[in-house]
């Protein structure tokens, strides 16, 4: 692992993301393997630049990862969570490497136990039926598909706020975002005084907040559709030909 990504990229330590990206592009143009085929030095330098880019773009994650690696080498608890049930996100990619990840939510990520949302690891309660206890075990083991299956077998008469809360967690783990959010909302509606449910709904929405933060300065409420072709010409024969075939290219 390189020590100073900012030095490698040639930017100050407080450089913003846009500056880091520009620096990366400048260096990549110099050292790209396509420009230096069979040159091991250029390849090594390119790896360094790539690593520096990832580190500079995610300073907290890399500090945490370095710390976790050290813990794993010394046999710490963080190493125990096995990879097989690690939630990877829809489509199979692991999003935790560069930004918001489901891993953070369920505490498998680099922050470990500290980042875990209270309630994300459900605990059995005295009144829980046996099926519910099994569901809780599955969720905590990361076996979301099994949990979802068991939950769907409980008839609607047995679906209380707790059922919706557990179902939301299981669905979220599986990547069923729409259902997870909808179900956690229902749990909150059915048990408005439950702070855990409210907090989890908030956590679910964090990804949405990340989107909205990135969207600042852009108008998400815009409604004016402007045809790209119209800007160039008055006639719309292309568009009418397209509409004959039902394709809306404009």
């Amino acid at each position, binding site marked *: 692992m390189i020590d100073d990504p900012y030095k490698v990229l040639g930017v100050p330590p407080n450089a913003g993301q846009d500056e880091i990206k520009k620096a990366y592009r400048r260096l990549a143009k110099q050292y790209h393997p396509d420009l230096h085929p069979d040159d091991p030095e250029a390849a090594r330098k390119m790896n360094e630049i790539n690593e520096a880019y990832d580190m500079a773009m995610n300073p907290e994650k890399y500090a945490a990862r370095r710390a976790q690696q050290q813990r794993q080498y010394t046999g710490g608890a963080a190493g125990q969570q096995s990879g097989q049930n690690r939630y990877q996100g829809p489509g199979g990619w692991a999003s935790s490497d560069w930004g918001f990840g489901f891993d953070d939510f369920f505490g498998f990520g680099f922050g470990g136990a500290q980042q875990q949302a209270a309630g994300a690891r459900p605990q059995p309660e005295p009144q829980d039926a046996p099926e519910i206890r099994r569901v809780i075990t599955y969720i905590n083991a990361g076996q979301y598909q099994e949990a979802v299956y068991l939950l769907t077998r409980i008839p609607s008469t047995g679906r209380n706020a707790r059922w919706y809360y557990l179902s939301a967690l299981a669905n979220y783990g599986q990547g069923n975002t729409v259902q997870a959010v909808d179900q956690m909302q229902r749990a909150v509606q059915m048990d408005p005084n439950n702070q855990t449910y409210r907090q989890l709904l908030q956590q679910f929405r964090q990804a949405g907040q990340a989107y909205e933060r990135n969207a600042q300065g852009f108008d998400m409420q815009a409604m004016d559709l402007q045809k790209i072709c119209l800007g160039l010409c008055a006639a719309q024969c292309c568009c009418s030909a397209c509409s004959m075939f*039902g394709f809306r290219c404009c």
Partner: protein
Amino acid sequence: MKERGHNMFGYVQANLKDLSEEEQARYRAVYCGLCRTLGRRYGAPARMGLTYDLTFLTLLLGSLYEPEEETGTFRCLPHPWREHEYAASECTDYAADMTVALVYFKCLDDWEDERKFSRKIYAGWLKRSYEKVKELWPGKCRVIEDQLNALSRLENARDPSPDAAAGCFGKLMEELFVYRADRWEDRLRALGNGLGRYIYLADAMADRERDRRRGSYNPLADLDAGPEDFRSTLTVVLGGASQAFESLPLVQDVHILRNILYSGLWLKYNRAVRPAPQKEKV
């Protein structure tokens, strides 16, 4: 795409109003470049498949890889009286290939659903072009076909899970977004997957009222939330995609790309779910 007969393309477009004149010209040049490449590579019928969505992909991949660009002006068949500026690169070639695959399957689909004869003819025209694309990109074509079939099965079975169907479209889009197997693949997949799921879900919500009236299947039929509340769910779906996008080292055209992702993406949805002032409230 069987029962619902919807046009899911066109969500990923720019909000032209908020782009500078130079940016609008650039966006048009890339759009025209894609149109021109489609015509040159696959003949005139292929140009009917031109979409804003694949224009976005061209811009995105162009920004990531900064390939050599060919620029110039040309006269296109539908607008022969004015010279149009165009810009094209190897990324445009790729987007053209993917366009053909998508429009070919859409034609087949529409012929299956609605028995529109024009589609049958059109699919016939495109078949040879599609065969060429399949030779260039066999893996991708297989994924497109598989996911569209899976989506059809879910819709025909009236599967109540919106996420399952959205997931198919997500997998399809993520495959399109990966131009090369390199270190950006995961991020491009995350971006493509999120956009694919957004498109499917936004489209389902936009059609929900109409489907309800017609008794057609809609995967969001059982959802409590209305279109305005659903917005926050849609932003959750886009969260990972957005983070992945921002993690890419994009400099060229980045304002246009952000305009599309954070503003233009909502144009179609806003128009569909907000009642126009003249409409009577039912």
